[in-house]
């Protein structure tokens, strides 16, 4: 065996398998939580509950998947929740007025994407730090949505459209299939395209990425646009699940999405993390909140628990980061 071959076969210590290890631990954590819940609550293992968890996790995942790409570049998109709300309200209106679910879906995706693109422009061309830019955008979107809805609710969508969020196929909720599809697309994009590689490079060291010939500004525009479009997608699912649209549906969506990304092992500082990890993160978060529900804990505790989890996840991320430096 030549030296080179020997070297290639020696235990790989690159970051990619680090990622795999991290995801593995998190999967383990998810399983442990399942086990614990199964013990402490009789209704946990019921079919209805499991499907509910899966559906809820998929809703969080849709938003969090696009967000993952943004966080991979060491950025943040705080406007996702508000984006979902605006997109849902506009898409809902379009469906009502044109009677075409397809047009509604396209509208939702478009609105989400445009918002994302605007975020990207603020970050790249206007050089505003992403957390401030998207924070400002959050409030602008909130305002627009509330103004647009003027306190009304839109409800009552065609049955076919409602299937997207509430329907079942072979016993599984349709959102779960969508989740699997987007999990696959997201993972393939991140790991198997050159743009995905460039995004990791930008997150790992944006200066070096630029000096290596990566068009950083264009890629950043891309990730923010994707994050926005995924929010648009989520809005469609919400619309079809709730069969209604109101201005406030986005309020409780941003924090769980961020939590899912961070729990899943994606580092706030960029360059580390996977879409699959975000899925596991969404699962863990949903399990925790589901467990709280089953154990009759006051629902008011949920934002608090999510907040604590976010802080813990960040702290863990920083400790891991410091060790490898």
């Amino acid at each position, binding site marked *: 065996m030549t030296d*080179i071959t020997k*070297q*290639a*076969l*020696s235990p*790989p*210590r*690159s*970051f*990619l*398998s680090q990622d795999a290890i991290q995801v593995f631990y998190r999967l383990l954590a998810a399983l442990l939580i399942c086990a614990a819940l199964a013990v402490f609550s009789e209704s946990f293992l019921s079919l209805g509950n499991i499907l509910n968890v899966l559906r809820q996790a998929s809703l969080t995942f849709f938003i969090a998947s696009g967000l993952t790409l943004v966080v991979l570049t060491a950025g943040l998109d705080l406007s996702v929740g508000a984006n979902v709300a605006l997109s849902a309200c506009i898409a809902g209106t379009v469906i009502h007025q044109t009677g075409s679910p397809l047009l509604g879906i396209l509208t939702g995706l478009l609105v989400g994407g445009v918002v994302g693109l605007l975020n990207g422009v603020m970050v790249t061309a206007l050089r505003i730090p992403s957390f401030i830019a998207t924070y400002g955008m959050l409030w602008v979107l909130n305002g627009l949505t509330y103004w647009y809805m003027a306190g009304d609710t839109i409800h009552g969508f065609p049955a076919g459209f409602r299937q997207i969020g509430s329907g079942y196929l072979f016993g599984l909720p349709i959102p779960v299939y969508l989740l699997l599809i987007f999990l696959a697309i997201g993972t393939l994009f991140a*790991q*198997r*395209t*050159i*743009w*995905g*590689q*460039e995004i*990791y*490079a930008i997150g*790992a*060291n944006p*200066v*070096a*990425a*630029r*000096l*290596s*010939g*990566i*068009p950083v*500004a264009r890629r950043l525009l891309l990730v923010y646009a994707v994050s926005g479009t995924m929010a648009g997608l989520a809005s469609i699912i919400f619309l079809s699940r709730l069969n209604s649209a109101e201005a406030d549906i986005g309020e409780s969506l941003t924090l769980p999405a961020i939590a899912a990304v961070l729990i899943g092992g994606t580092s706030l500082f960029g*360059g*580390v993390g996977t879409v699959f990890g975000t899925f596991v993160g969404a699962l863990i978060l949903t399990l925790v909140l589901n467990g709280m529900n089953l154990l009759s804990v006051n629902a008011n505790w949920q934002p608090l628990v999510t907040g604590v989890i976010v802080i813990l996840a960040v702290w863990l991320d920083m400790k891991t980061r410091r060790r*490898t*430096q």
Partner: protein
Amino acid sequence: MTTALPTEPASPTQETLPPLLELRGISKEFPGVKALDDVSFAVFPGEVHMLLGENGAGKSSLMKVLCGAYSADAGEFYYKGEKVTIASTADAQKLGIAVIFQEFSLVPYLDIAQNIFLGREPKGRIPGTIDRRKILADARRVLDSIGFEIDPSVTVDKLGVAQQQMVEIAKAISQNARILVMDEPTAALSDRETELLFALIARLKADGVAIVYISHRMAEVFTLGDRITVLRDGRRIDGVRPADVTSDQLVRMMVGRTVDMTYPRNFAERRGEVLLEVKGLTSPAGISDINIEVRQGEIVGLCGLVGSGRSEVARAVFGADPVTSGEIIFDGKTISGEPDVAARRGIALIPESRKSEGLALLRSVGDNLVVSALRKLFPSGVFDPRSAQRTADGLIRQLRIATPGARQTVGLLSGGNQQKVVIGKWLAAGAKLFIFDEPTRGIDIGAKSEIFALIDRLVAEGAAALMISSEQVEICHVCDRAYVMREGRIAGHLSRSELTEENIVRLGMHHA
């Protein structure tokens, strides 16, 4: 440019006084580099002690050891004849040693008085408050003592560099500094401001304050200096008086080397087409009217002192910095824009700080090797990890990068191997012009010759190289010819026969 200055020659009686500070046998080592090697050196009260040396000679390490930022590995300090330890900045402050670094430690939106007395503010009547009147009065007194007329309630951000420097000096004086170390204080000053600084130095001297003065300007060394110490490769070469030495002799002391470095290079006539032509390049980073030409098969050096603008030229050509005027023509076509344009056309930049600008330390060797070649290797957009691995393995073999494999985290490699990865990434991208910024910095001797052999091979195969280096020996042994920069401009061009270390240093330094 000479500046008239009322200097008094160092009085012979000064040396009958004990030195204010004496260093004996100070050594400081970093992994792979001996920054200071058995340096002994004495500073007398009221003298201006010039510290000369090339880049990397040990001047900044000596400064940091003096002020306690670094602790010496070996050697002793004597203050007024008594042994002392300088292991922290507090120790140095207590002995009255103050260093005026080039990056000032001032808080921009506080006023001069607050900056001078940061942490030592005079207390007001209510606990916690500051006595505004007293702090302003105290500040005025300190400023007067150094002859700096300015309202101490002005915020520091409104001051020019020269004035900020004065505030730093005032700060040091207010801490009763008896030894002031100044690092190229006139570098950013106009003639008039320089005169004022020299007047201040005269005052300080009269007060008995000792000044250790680092400079690259021969004129200053002779007009201002009482004694001169020359450092080279971390060692003290000699201490002389300005009256006893010529500037040529000083240059020879700074530069002479007896290390035998064999960088076999074939300087045969194989200059090909002009690959890079730079005309009248000016950028807001401080370079003006740069004209450079690089042909295929050549290694062209770009020398000059630290801060002369070499890296800025490299960055401007690569598109990393904006350009105010001028033209860059690569391979016959004008080029402008962000680095991704230059990279795609075939220009490569191997930056000065490879860890922060050349590599993603957290990623693998393989990832780093293919990052600039992604579009070339995978034109369809689909990334195939196995194919990338194969390319990486090939480069590892070709460049003899010492790593357990392509999956190794690049941050764990040694400096030399990291540098090979940076070069390798551009090889994979198919670059034709390689711009090297200090390619062998922080790399041990063995790896250095490997790197040079690599560069030689590259240009032999039709590429071209522009090499920035502060090690004049390397430039002379490796480059076909070289441009010398000084203060943002091209000071001159040296052909192969003219390429000697002395010529480089002479062109690069600010002469009368």
